């Protein structure tokens, strides 16, 4: 991920500190440690782990949301993959009702199966891009959700209960330097 110039120094400082940082055990619905990698073109992935996964409902789901602010930065639907337990891929709904830009997601129907201090990962890829759009803002968000369909498991049933920004305030540039941001 290539960042706009004035943000490059703070990012490098952040990464240097994070390499020596040992995660603390805080109780959260969102992963307390992780990263986001972008190769500058069509591929992104994220690694993340919880200190003490804690939920506000008894049967929670969890969703890892990549919100790309510009509708035309990626012009194809995405392909996703994740090792989350009982996982789902939610590229199908990206853009539907996302008035501020598409949200590309993957998640788990059963967040109670998430293990503390265990790395999970997920990745996204796309196949087309609008060449007139060279940069876009984005957010990476962690979301606790609930299944409003009861026992049926479908991406159309997962409704947000809590959302947290994991990464915000950055831009990605087309053709930029492959880069990782830690959170």
């Amino acid at each position: 991920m290539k960042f706009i110039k004035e943000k490059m120094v703070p990012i490098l400082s952040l990464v240097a500190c994070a390499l020596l940082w040992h995660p603390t055990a805080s109780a959260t619905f969102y992963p307390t440690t992780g990263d986001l990698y972008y190769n500058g073109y069509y591929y992104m992935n994220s690694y993340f782990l919880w200190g003490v996964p804690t939920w506000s409902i008894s049967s929670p789901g969890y969703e890892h949301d990549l919100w790309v602010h510009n509708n035309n930065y990626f012009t194809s639907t995405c392909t996703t993959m994740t090792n989350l337990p009982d996982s789902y891929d939610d590229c199908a709904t990206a853009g539907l009702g996302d008035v501020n830009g598409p949200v590309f997601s993957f998640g788990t129907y059963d967040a109670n199966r998430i293990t503390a201090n265990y790395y999970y990962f997920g990745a996204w890829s796309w196949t087309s891009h609008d060449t007139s759009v060279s940069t876009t803002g984005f957010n990476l968000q962690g979301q606790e959700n609930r299944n409003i369909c009861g026992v049926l498991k479908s991406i159309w049933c997962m409704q947000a209960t809590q959302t947290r920004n994991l990464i915000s305030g950055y831009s990605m540039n087309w053709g930029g330097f492959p880069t990782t941001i830690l959170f």
Partner: protein
Amino acid sequence: MGDSEISALINSYEVSPKAVFMWMSGLSATHRVNDDMTVDEIILSARNETENFLLNSIEANNMRLQRLSSSYSAEQIASDKILENQARSLLNIQSQLESALDIVKSGGPMIYGLEVSGDQKALSQLRSNGNIEMSISTALSNTISIDRRSLKPEAYRQEYRDNSLIETNSIELHSMMLEKIDDVPDLLFMKPHNLDNL
């Protein structure tokens, strides 16, 4: 079901494939296309895309293995439960990605579902085939009606666990991480400028 069986099954109906749903070694994946494709084309596209996807992911996992192994010694990882869990999980992901790549490259079964579009008659004919379980979505103007069932097999909800890793002594984890990094072909290894940027 293998690719050729899926192709033969779906090709006998006048429907267009839009997405492929896959599962291999505990990894769940969806490959969706914008262009009109035949069943053979979308299956080939899914396999090629997934192979590239996994190669990119192995490369990216190596970056994490390198980051952890260069930040902590073997003794530090072995004596700290949190670091030990992190090392085991990254090695498990590596094993999982390599196992999935083997399946994709060898042509092993990986597709459990297709999303298709077609007219009412074609979909009804498809539904009457006893070898196909269907979930119907219909779009009329701006109204979308969704059948909320998931067709993902129940067995696919299991997580991948490399048993050899579970049995590995914690003091050996560091050297295992280094071995995995060294095992990666030059083509997959992170280029120096990627590491410089961390």
